[in-house]
């Protein structure tokens, strides 16, 4: 057994017994997690992505000692999550979004005090930390108010403070911003990034908001149906999935010739209500120039041009589709083939024009890939 400062997951498998009908029906095993390997080092935010039912929450609960793996090992700083569960619990904590998870008949401060006792946080530390945490989540003013009088957002912020009360070495975040107001979600992202960068906390994050993952995670694991699909930095993932850069070109006076020009690129066409036509082209390369030139030369008047940069969301969807196709085939076994090696593809250059999704993406998301790359990701196959 080697001592490492990381969560090391090897060959993790989890089967749940399920009964088909009623309580006396035949029992079958449902495999929720199937042979996962994960490394969650200190000082980095590691993402865990997948479609619904991919096994993300099960994986997180196993790491949190709430579930016992059916096979495989989970080591946290060298401690076994099953055999040394109690020691492991002192080092980790879990924040799950969207649920209430605090006591409503106690004040915010009392909630933190209570959980501090359960985690055996030394008295003086606890007093100081309670103050710091309440500050951090902006609840200092409501610290002595009963939680039942909190708004939903306040309750969720308290739940976040609770998850930090034992100053965990490893923080497991299961959809932490689910249902949070945008500014609070932004603050939480800032806190998480800070915990990893300055306190050296190892963070595992699952989220439906891929922009959030793109912003925070230095390394992302993509899983589907409990199996490993791909891993790498967000930039690497996007590059390796063929980066669906999207060009949208509006032609105000479409003719047979402009249509033929567009079709030659394999673009799709859509008639607009004003008689114009929208030409959409998804392509790995930068095709905006050639397409525009071809349409222009065919006599078309250009009414507008948009270039959408590839997003992590596109990459994940592509991976999931590929993964499902691959997993469905016989003998496809472990989908290691889709693992992305660093340098296998170069990250696409930043788009000159602002992506149209920019309005829905939190500030900073546009520059996330380069930030993530700078965070020093080792990436590659395990």
């Amino acid at each position: 057994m080697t001592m490492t400062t990381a969560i090391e997951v090897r060959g993790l498998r989890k089967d749940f017994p399920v009964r088909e009908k009623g309580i006396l029906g035949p029992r079958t095993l449902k495999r929720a997690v199937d042979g996962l390997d994960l490394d969650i080092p200190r000082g980095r935010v590691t993402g865990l992505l997948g479609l619904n039912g991919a096994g993300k929450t099960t994986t997180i609960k196993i790491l949190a000692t709430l579930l016992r793996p059916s096979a495989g090992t989970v080591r946290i700083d060298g401690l076994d999550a099953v055999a040394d569960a109690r020691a492991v619990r002192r080092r980790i904590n879990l924040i799950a979004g969207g649920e209430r998870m605090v006591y409503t008949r106690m004040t915010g401060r009392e909630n933190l005090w209570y959980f501090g006792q359960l985690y055996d946080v030394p008295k003086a530390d606890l007093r100081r930390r309670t103050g710091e945490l309440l500050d951090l989540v902006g609840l200092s003013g409501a610290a002595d108010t009963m939680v039942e009088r909190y708004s939903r957002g306040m309750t969720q912020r308290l739940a976040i403070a609770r998850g930090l009360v034992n100053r965990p070495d490893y923080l497991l975040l299961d959809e932490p911003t689910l249902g949070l107001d945008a500014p609070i979600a932004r603050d939480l992202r800032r806190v998480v990034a800070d915990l990893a960068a300055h306190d050296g906390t190892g963070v595992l994050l699952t989220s439906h908001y891929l922009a959030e993952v793109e912003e925070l995670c230095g390394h992302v694991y993509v899983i589907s149906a409990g199996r490993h699909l791909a891993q790498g930095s967000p930039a690497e993932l996007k590059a390796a999935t063929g980066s669906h850069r999207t060009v949208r070109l509006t032609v105000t006076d479409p003719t047979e010739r402009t249509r033929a020009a567009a079709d030659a690129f394999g673009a799709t066409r859509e008639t607009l209500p004003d008689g114009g036509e929208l030409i959409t082209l998804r392509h790995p390369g930068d095709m905006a120039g050639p397409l525009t030139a071809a349409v222009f030369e065919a006599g078309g008047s250009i009414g507008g041009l948009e270039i959408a940069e590839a997003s992590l969301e596109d990459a994940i969807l592509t991976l999931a589709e590929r993964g499902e196709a691959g997993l469905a085939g016989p003998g496809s076994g472990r989908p290691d083939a889709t693992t992305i090696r660093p340098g296998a593809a170069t990250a696409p250059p930043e788009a000159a024009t602002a992506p149209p999704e920019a309005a829905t993406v939190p500030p900073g998301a546009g520059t996330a890939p380069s930030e993530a790359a700078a965070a020093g990701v080792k990436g590659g196959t395990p």
Partner: protein
Amino acid sequence: MNPLRHSLRVFAAETLKQHRRLFGQPLVVFSMLVWPVLQLATTYYTLRPVATASRAAENWPLAADPDRLLAFLATGTLAYAFFFSLVQSAWHLSFERTTGTLELLFLSPAGRLTLMIANGAGALLQNAWLLTCFTVAALTGFGTLSVSAWWMYGIVLLALLIPAVAWGAFLNSLLVFSRDSAFLYTILDEPLWFVSGVRLPHFALPAAVQVVGAVFPLTGSLLAVRGALLEHRTASELAPTLLGLGALSALLLVAAALILRVGEARARRTGALSLV
């Protein structure tokens, strides 16, 4: 990290949490004092016709006059309140399954049995002290007490507290892992007073009911409390009852620990907090 000190901290925190959760309710004094006293009055009036019957005195000398019947029923009400407050506390704890806080308890390194015992103790301190004061005052005022030595009061308190806390830990462990806690709550409310001899002396109960009643620590507690307070029994006379109570309490604690171990292992295997 001293394990004993950690356990004490968990105990104190859980007790206080339970106090805050229960005491936050408005007019909690109703369930603590008003309801038991009104219920006592109803029971007293309902049974009075049989206690004033001409042959009652020879059948049941202890309650031969109305005041002594009232004292008998009052001790029953007090002991029942002790044990039932733990049923209620377990019922509250079972709500933590749905609010998600139970998962947080299992996420923490705190000792599970400590949590269950402390949760019950919190409910007990919270619920029973007012009724205890009231009952002691009333019994003293009526002049129906018949106690062999002053320290028998201490024995009475221990005979109530220790089995009740063990009972609470057992129930908490059971309800944490049972899907239909409403059912347990129902069968442990009314039948509990019936089989434990809260409102009738044990000799009046059919043998089968007495056997069932022996399983519940409330039965033994009542024998000890009434023996010490109303029948002038000495500690040595009560020794068999007290020993039995101690053994039953130990058994309940062992059972609680076992349920917790099996239940948590199962929960970690199946992802569902239930025993079956």
